[in-house]
Structures are given as C-alpha cells and as structure tokens.
C-alpha cells in the first residue's frame, strides 16, 4: 500500500487537524465526536444543513462546509458512516432556530446512523428533517436491494440547498428542494482501478490491466459489470445512456452536467470526457446550461469517473450560481 499517511487509524484525525490549521477562516473542527462546522455557526434564523459520511470522498463533505453550502459535516472512518453522536452534536452546533436538514446518502449505515441521530435530536426538542439522496442509476431500484446509492448528485444538493438556506428559506422549503433535486438528477460511475482502504492495506478489488468496472459506487465496492477497456467516448456513452433514459431526460431539457473525477483521474481526462458528454447530451436535444468538472466526490485514489445530470429550472440555476465560500467550492466571495 502506497499512501502518504502515518497510521491508518490516525488518518481521519490528522486530516481534521490539517483542515483546522488550513481553514480557520472558514471552519471550526471538533473532536470526539468529530465534526466540522462553519466558523460562524449557528447562523441565527437560518436553516442549518448537515451532511456526513465515511471519509475518503474529499473534498466532500468537509470541504463543503462554509457560507452558502453546509453548516456542518460529520466524517466517519474511511468509507464508514459516522456515528449518531457526531450528527447529534453537529445538529446542536448549527441549529440557529430554524431547524436542521440532514442530507443523507442512501447507504444502510448512513441512513441508520442519521436516523438515530435525528431521533435523539428530536427527543432534545430540535427540529430536524432528513432527505436521503439516491441518484445512482447503476443500482436497480427494487424492493430487493437497499435501493440506489447516493453519489455525485449529493454535491449538487449540498450547493443548491446551501444557497436556499442562505436565502432564508424554511426547513420545509429546503427539505422539499433537496427532494426535488434528488428527483431531477441521476449519476453513473465507472472505475479503471480500485482504491485501497488504508486499514485494509490492499486494493478492494483486482482489476486486470485491460479491464474496467462499470457502475461502481464511491467506496471501492465492485460495480455491476466488468468489461474490456473502452475509449473515453465509449465510456461516456455507456454512462450517459442509462442516465438519460432513466428519468427520462427529454429534448429541450436544460441540465447541469457534472463530470466527476474519482480521485486518481487527471483533469485532462475529465475535459476529454466532458467534451463527449456535451456531444451526447446535445444529440438528445438536451442543453447543458451549467457544469462542474473535477474531483468533488472521490473514492480515495481510484481512477475513474462519474457523470451526473441534473435537470435545471430558473430557481435551481439561481441557487447554483449563488455565492459560496468553502475550501472545496468557491464562487462570488
């Protein structure tokens, strides 16, 4: 295992210490339980927005704490959902009197831990709503699975809801907005290589030099199918087709197109993919009106990509364009 770390057990703590030292203008970091809050939290009268999940997806979520996005993030161990005490403490820390929204990615662990935190918070008299994000079209959405995973769309939900909260919308409005975004966005990912979880010490899966996995998530979990390497253009088609046909997006739709790097994929490749993704969208009459290109929701050093499309309307565009000041995303401030 080749990593720039000290001990696997210390990675998350030391990362938090690094974040604390790096961004005292943006965030405060708390330990035991671990969470990161916006430096000026709680913001009085504003809905607080919290997300969290396993570490290893940086900049998500800790890098999105700040004005215009998240009020707090709760990092778990690498790829392991955080625990309810973290979310409870973070909820209390960001409650400005207008209630707190939990943005939860749809994984059994995340959902259960957030649920317990919300129950505890409600018992203490706090107003909490939770929205579960499940945008991954790689997973069959059936009664016989844990449902679709929450992946790339989460970044967009956090940005858009963060802007809405900043505008002064109510908890119900922001939660409904999160559900709306969740209903309008879809993602599909693929990997060229596995990642290595620090405490596991070896790649989660072995992928021969001439093969790739289609339909991977963000935890080094294997995908739905394995196949021979294809060109960038073919990969884009394989990712875009199931996205477009799922909602389904239709001619005339305006979308935000998000080409995400999984951590080990150079930016130069993401632009090559973006070029083709726009072409595919246009072939369907879909107009790309906003975009996001880069490693925003990663899977450690995995080489691969995910593509997210989100149907936009005037309100979503306004919220997307609103100012944001975080370590991982910045606009207008």
């Amino acid at each position, binding site marked *: 295992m080749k990593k720039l770390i000290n001990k696997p057990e210390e990675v998350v703590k030391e990362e938090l210490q690094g974040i604390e030292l790096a961004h005292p203008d943006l965030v405060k970091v708390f330990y035991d339980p671990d969470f990161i809050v916006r430096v000026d939290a709680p913001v009085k009268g504003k809905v607080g927005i919290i997300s969290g999940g396993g570490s290893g997806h940086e900049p998500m979520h800790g890098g999105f704490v700040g004005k215009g996005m998240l009020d707090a993030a709760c990092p778990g161990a690498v*790829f392991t959902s955080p625990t309810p005490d973290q979310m409870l403490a973070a909820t209390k820390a960001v409650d400005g009197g207008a209630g707190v929204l939990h943005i939860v990615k749809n994984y059994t662990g995340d959902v259960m831990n957030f649920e317990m935190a919300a129950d505890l918070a409600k018992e203490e008299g706090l107003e909490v709503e939770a929205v579960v994000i499940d945008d991954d079209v790689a997973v069959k959405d059936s009664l016989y699975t844990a449902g679709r995973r929450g992946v790339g769309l989460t970044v967009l939900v956090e940005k858009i809801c963060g802007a809405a909260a900043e505008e002064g919308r109510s908890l119900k409005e922001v939660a409904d907005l999160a559900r709306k975004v969740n209903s309008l966005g879809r993602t599909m990912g693929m990997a060229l290589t596995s990642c290595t979880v620090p405490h596991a010490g070896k790649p989660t899966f072995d992928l021969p030099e001439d093969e790739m996995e289609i339909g991977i998530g963000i935890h080094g979990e*294997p995908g739905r199918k394995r196949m021979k390497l294809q060109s960038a253009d073919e990969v884009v088609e394989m990712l875009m087709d199931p996205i477009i046909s799922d909602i389904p997006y239709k001619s005339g739709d305006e979308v935000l197109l998000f080409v995400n790097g999984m951590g080990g994929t150079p930016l130069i490749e993401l632009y090559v993919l973006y070029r083709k993704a726009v072409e595919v969208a246009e072939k369907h009459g879909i107009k790309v009106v906003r975009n996001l290109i880069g490693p925003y929701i990663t899977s450690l050093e995995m080489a691969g990509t995910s593509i997210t499309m989100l149907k936009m309307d005037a309100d979503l565009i306004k919220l997307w364009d609103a100012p944001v000041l975080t370590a991982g995303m910045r606009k207008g401030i």
Partner: protein
Amino acid sequence: MVITRDDVIDWIKVYAQLLVEKKDYLTDLDSAIGDADHGANMNRGFQAVLSKLPGMEDQDIGTIFKTVGMTLLSTVGGAGGPLYGSLFIQAGKAVSGKMELTLADWADALEAATTGVVSRGKAVLEDKTMVDALTPAVEALKESVSKGLSLSEGLKNSAKAAEEGMIATIPLVARKGRASYLGERSAGHQDPGATSSFYLVNTAFKTWTNSHK
C-alpha cells in the same frame, strides 16, 4: 449452572481479542461484496468497549450490555454500528437488573437482540445479513430451553446453528446492505456480518462452556 457477570465480561473480552485476529479476514469478506471495512469497524468498536470495561464490572448484566451497545453505537459506524449497537442495547433491556443469566435468560436476551437488529435494519432471513446467523442461533437456544437441555448443550446448539446460518449465506444474493448493489455478483461470497455474528455466538459457547467445565 448459570452465566455470571464475570462470564459475560470474559465473553466480551474474548470476542474483542478474536476480532483482533479476525479483523483482516472480516475485511477480506467485506472487500468481496462490500467496502472493505467490517473488520476494522468491529475491531475499533470492541477496542473502545474494552477500554470501558473497567467501569462496567460492578454493574448488572443488563447495564453492561447497554453500555456495550452505546459504546458500539458511537464508535463502529457504518451499518455495523447501529446493528450491533441495537443488538446489545436490546439484549440489555431484556435482562435488565440481572446479575446472572440462565440459559432461558440468555435465549431471551439473544432473541431481543435479534429483534433489535431486525427492527433497525429491516432484514428478513436469507437477505444475506447477520440476521441469517442470529435467527437460527435464537431458535436453537429456545428449542434447547424447551427441551430442558443443559447450558453447555444449549450454547453448543446455538453456535452450531449460527455457523450453519453463516455458511448458508454463501450462495445467497444479497437484498440488504451494501452487498445488495452487486446483485447476482454477491452470490458465492460469505456475508461478513453473518460471520462476525457467528463469532459472537460461538465465543459465548466457548467461553461459558470453558468456565463451567
């Protein structure tokens, strides 16, 4: 023959020790159909439990179980945290105030524990989860109680049932948890959570039988 408070503490210590040994194996199982962290998660949780044991030693068994559960809840994370947390918290409620357990008490405790896991995780039998190891163990215990078997025979039966349940997860297609994303590709692999649950039941059998030999 009963299970004393010391037996319970021993059980937890031996299980924590076993997790150190089995950590990599559990993680390997989780690599195949999950995200390669079940071993590390369980180990982190039970190391935390170990460090809290000194404060628990003069509590009743119900309180000990609840403290273990709360500790797991705040240290394990992932699916394992709430599930093993609920398991111990519900077991604790079932034997609240008791300073020793009969086989029947233990059957009640593990039944409540399993019900806790099921109501938290909504898994049914053959979803390829820890429930597949726990449920047969509970049934074996209850049957042993109703047949009037000895403590050690009852424990042995439950361990055997848990093991069979664990092995039976291999061919299953997962319908809960992270492995369910794999669809058909999840078949052919043993479930990590069923494995750690088998160890739990098996460690009870081994530790408590040993101390009553």
